[in-house]
C-alpha cells in the first residue's frame, strides 16, 4: 500500500490543529505539554493514516489526541500522584449543594465573569468531565462526536456532561466567598 505523503496528511489534519490543541490543553492543563501531546498524536495519526477508512476526520484525530493526552496523565500520575475527586466525580462532601441550589443564574453569571476563575474551576474537574465539557462548549461537538472521540455510549456523554456542568457550578460557587473577601 502506498503511504500518503506528509503534505496530504497536513491538508487533512492541520485544519483541526486548533481543536486538537484545545482538547490537549484541557487534559494536560499547560501549553507546553499540550503541544507535545498534539505533536505525538499527529505523528501517530500520520502513521495510521494509510488505514483511515473515512468517517468524521475531526473525531478520528481527536480520539488519537485524547489517547495521547491520557497517556501523558498516566505518566504524570506515576510520577506524582495528584489528589483528585472520587472516581465518579462526586466532591467529598455534598454540603455545598444546598447552597448551590439557592444560586440564581444571575449571581452565577456575575461571579464567573472572569475567564481565570472558569479555567481554575475547570482544572479541578477529573479529566473525563473536563474533556466532555470542553468538547461540547468549546469545540461544539455533537453527542455523537463526543461518543466517538471518548469511546463511550451517547448516554454516558449525557450523564458526564450533566455531572461535569454541575461540578463546575459548584466549584464556581465555592470560589465566591474568597473573591468577595478581596
Amino acid at each position, binding site marked *: 500500500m502506498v503511504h500518503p505523503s*506528509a503534505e496530504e496528511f497536513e491538508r487533512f489534519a492541520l485544519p483541526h490543529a486548533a481543536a486538537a490543541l484545545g482538547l490537549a490543553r484541557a487534559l494536560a492543563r499547560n501549553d507546553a505539554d499540550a503541544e507535545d501531546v498534539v505533536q505525538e498524536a499527529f505523528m501517530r495519526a500520520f502513521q495510521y493514516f494509510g488505514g483511515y477508512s473515512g468517517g468524521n476526520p475531526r473525531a478520528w484525530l481527536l480520539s488519537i489526541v485524547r489517547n495521547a493526552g491520557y497517556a501523558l496523565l498516566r505518566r504524570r500520575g506515576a510520577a506524582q500522584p495528584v489528589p483528585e475527586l472520587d472516581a465518579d466525580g462526586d466532591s467529598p462532601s455534598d454540603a455545598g449543594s444546598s447552597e448551590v441550589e439557592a444560586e440564581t443564574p444571575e449571581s452565577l453569571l456575575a461571579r464567573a465573569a472572569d475567564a481565570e476563575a472558569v479555567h481554575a474551576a475547570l482544572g479541578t474537574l477529573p479529566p473525563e468531565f473536563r474533556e466532555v465539557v470542553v468538547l461540547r462548549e468549546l469545540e461544539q461537538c455533537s453527542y455523537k462526536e463526543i461518543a466517538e472521540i471518548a469511546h463511550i455510549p451517547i448516554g454516558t456523554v449525557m450523564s458526564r456532561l450533566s455531572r461535569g456542568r454541575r461540578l463546575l457550578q459548584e466549584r464556581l460557587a465555592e470560589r465566591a466567598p474568597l473573591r468577595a473577601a478581596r
Partner: protein
Amino acid sequence: MSEHLGDVLHAYVDDELGTERTLDVRAHLAACAQCRRSYEKVRALRGVLQRTLRPAEPSPAFLRRLRASLRRADPSRFRRRAERVGWAAVPLAAAALLTVAVLPGLRGPRADLTGEVVAAHLRSLQVDHLTDVASSDRHTVKPWFQGKVPFSPPVPDLRDQGYPLEGGRLDLVGDRPVAALVYRARQHAINVLVWPDPEARDSAPQAETRGGIHVLHWSSQGMTWWAVSDVNAEELQRLAALLREAAP
C-alpha cells in the same frame, strides 16, 4: 409530574433530543419550577463558558515544528522525489538523504548546532518550503518577521553584488525560532539563519562542510549568523563578507 428531568435536561439544552422528547421536556418545564431553575442555571453556565473559553491558537512556531516532524517521518519522500525529478536533481536527492543522516543526532540531549543548521537548510529545499514570504524587497521581508520572531533581523540587500534576496522564512533551530533569509546565487539557494545571542563574542566566519553542504558561522554585535548552501566554499565566503559589511 413526580420525577425531575435530571440528565435529560442537558440533552434538551444541547438540542440533542428528538421532537417528541423535546415536547415532553417543554411540558415538564412548564409545570415544574425546580427544573425550570435548573434549566436557567445550565443556560447561564453555558453562557459563561461560551464567553470565557477561548479557542486554542496554535503558534506559528508550533505549527512549523509539527510540520517539520511530519515531513521527517514521511516515508514517501524519497520515492516521490525520485519519480518527479529524475537525474537533474541528484544533488538534491543526496541532500534529502543527508537529512536522515543528520537528524538522529538532533534527538540527543546535546544537539549539534551545525547539524541543525544543515538540517534546516535541507528542509527548506523541500517542496514549497524555501520561503514563507517571497520577495526580493528587503522592505517587505524585514517587517514580515515582526511578531514572528522576538527580534528584528538585519535584512541586507545584496542584489547589486549578485545575490538577490529571494525571501524570508521562520525556521527552528533546536527549539529556537530563527529568521531565515534566502539569497540566490545563480541556481543555488543560500540560507542565512540569524538569531540573537547576547553572550557570543564577535568572531570571524568559521567554515565547516557536511556532506557537500558548506556552512559558515560568525557572530557580530550580539547576533549569531549561519550561512549554509551547496554553492562552493569561496562563493559562500564572498556572501558572508558582503553580509558582514552590510550588517556589521
